[in-house]
């Protein structure tokens, strides 16, 4: 699905990311963890071709993401507010994103309606622009928006932060329930959620992959051990 080759990114001569070789396969739920400044968001931005790699490349279905725009039809992401359009209402935003994939207005309403427990009556059908929503509600809009259009790969940057405890669990369940034939690439600081939901965990430290463990009983142990503070 995604193949990273000799990828390096530096800012003003300071290296922030250096991944020699990393492949993410279809259907994997990959958790990306690492302390602040480890390079998680940088990696996501590179996969989405939002920033330019200093060297190396990222292939999505064998095609370099910086050379084609094909990946835009099957890749979705919510990294931050830059993925929201703040002068639209939530419904209009979903309609806009749905429109990119030729969803009709009713299609999109039906699709979004299934997530009503998450929205908790505060988002759908409200006469409020996204810029007027609270931080948590904005995040919900962005996360659900990234599921529209049946994407084959979903990138979520810290989907659990700023959400209430029940919604965190609901988001976790969404990942589990919507992962058939879909790749989730999720970063988080919440080790419990990551350990619970992911089938593979990648630990980044100072821009390098320091652990890459697939579904195994030791995975959780290794994760907590790595971040232990002594």
């Amino acid at each position: 699905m995604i193949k990273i080759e000799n990828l390096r990114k530096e800012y003003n001569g300071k290296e922030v990311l250096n991944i020699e070789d990393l492949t993410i396969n279809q259907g994997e739920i990959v958790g990306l963890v690492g302390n602040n400044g480890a390079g998680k968001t940088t990696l996501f931005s590179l996969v989405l071709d939002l920033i330019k790699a200093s060297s190396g490349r990222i292939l999505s279905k064998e095609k370099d993401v910086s050379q084609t725009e094909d990946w835009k039809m099957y890749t979705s992401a919510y990294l931050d507010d830059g993925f929201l359009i703040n002068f639209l209402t939530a419904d209009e935003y979903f309609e806009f994103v749905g429109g990119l994939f030729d969803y009709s207005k009713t299609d999109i309403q039906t699709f979004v309606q299934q997530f009503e427990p998450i929205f908790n009556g505060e988002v759908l059908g409200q006469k409020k622009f996204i810029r007027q929503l609270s931080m948590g509600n904005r995040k919900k809009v962005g996360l659900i928006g990234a599921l529209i259009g049946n994407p084959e790969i979903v990138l979520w940057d810290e989907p659990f932060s700023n959400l209430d405890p029940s919604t965190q669990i609901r988001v976790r369940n969404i990942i589990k329930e919507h992962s058939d034939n879909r790749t989730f690439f999720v970063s988080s600081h919440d080790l419990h959620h990551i350990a619970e939901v992911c089938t593979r965990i990648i630990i980044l430290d100072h821009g390098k992959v320091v652990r890459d463990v697939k579904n195994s009983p030791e995975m959780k142990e290794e994760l907590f051990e790595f971040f232990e503070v002594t």
Partner: protein
Amino acid sequence: MKKPNFLKHAWLSFRRSPALTQNILQTLFLAFFGFYIAVSFLISGLVAGELIRDFFPGRDVLGMAGAFLIYYLPMDILMRYFLQKFPTLSIKPYLLLPVSKSAMIHYLLRRSLFSFYSFLPVFLTLPFFFVEVLPNASSTESIGFVVMVLGIIVSSNYISFWISKASDFNNSFSIVLLLLLFGFLFLEFKGITSFFPYLESAATAFFTNPIWWVMPIALASGVYMYLFFYFKKHLTAEKESKDETYLQNISLGFFGRFGHAGRLMDLEIRLLLRSKRARSYLLMSFAILFFPLIMSNSEGLGKEFTYILFGLLMTGMIALNHGQLMLSWNSLHFDLLQSRGNTIHDIFKAKYYILALSCVVTYVLTLPYVFYDPMIVVFNTALLFINTSFSIYMYMALAGYNSLRVDPDEGNSFSMSGFGAAHYLIGIPIMVFPIVLFYAGKFGFGSTTGGVLTLLVVGVVATIFHKKVIDACVNLFGKNRYKIAAAFRKE
């Protein structure tokens, strides 16, 4: 309670603002632009006395100057309302500190006075004061003049502060007021009615009798006190949330049926209508449509020049205001646009069609001028196609270099942060090219009709090739896209 050094923070926030630190060229250009405005105001002030003698022979120069100053007051208030920024939230970080709220509010109110807009009238009146007032008028009149100018500056500042932040005044009301003011000016210059004599006698009374000086002082301090008590009661760390639901019920999905670019056009229309800044640009653009009414009736070469200038502005003002910032309007959600579904090509296509459409709409609105001066419509028809081709192509090309982040909802203000050197420079080819084209045609074919036809033919042909130009502009943008997208992300 302690009184922190607010002024030092204000200075630091100015010194460290991205507009000043990011780009030395831009800073230099801003400085030059400010200097240019200041100098042209100084010169206007120097010749103002002569102008009054020319246009209003036999009238009292000082009295007429006073009449213009009184007339200028509502204009200044409106100008500030549209352009000046009154940042009430800038004191948010201090609200929780042990600082007296009164001190903060006084600081907030006083700081607003030291803006570029307050100095404009000073530049305009200072040379006039030394050249005309001091040598010719009595000392009472001289002091009266100074009191009037200062009174106008201070009252105007606080009245528009009040309008922007502490009242229910809205944009449409201000447009009505603007039209009224232009209407009066129109009637005055066309000689239909004359209300300047009343203003003149009011001004003369003001200059000679110090009793009246109480008026501006009372007005300015009254509004200041009102604002002070208003903010003392209402200023909290809460972001003001006005009811914005009024635009929700308008169905805005018309272009969606035309595919991806069409959906982006719908998005653009929503942005135009719902974002304060884009909306005030839109309203300013419509105000331009009334300019021919106050245009001077000079004859000969100057006349054609005026037709071209106003024609370009009338049929292209929305495109000019909105198109200059092309992708910057989408800077807050640019990552979404460039990573999902859309291609960069869709984005440029949508931008082209929406801007071309705005030219057509404003063109249609100028059609009634056929009853006033048919030549306006003749020129506008040709210039419409210059705008839908050459002008918009320039903006699209500029988008490949413009990396300025713009928050379209950032107040009803004209923040300089969105403008770079290229924005001032781009105006030159956009104005010069059609003028050169017209005169080439005029002298080539030997008639005004030849000039207009040249504009029309070149415009139509260039518009037909818009798809090729869009492709070229997409490629141009592609070369700088990482740099531009990175700048859009920076707050």
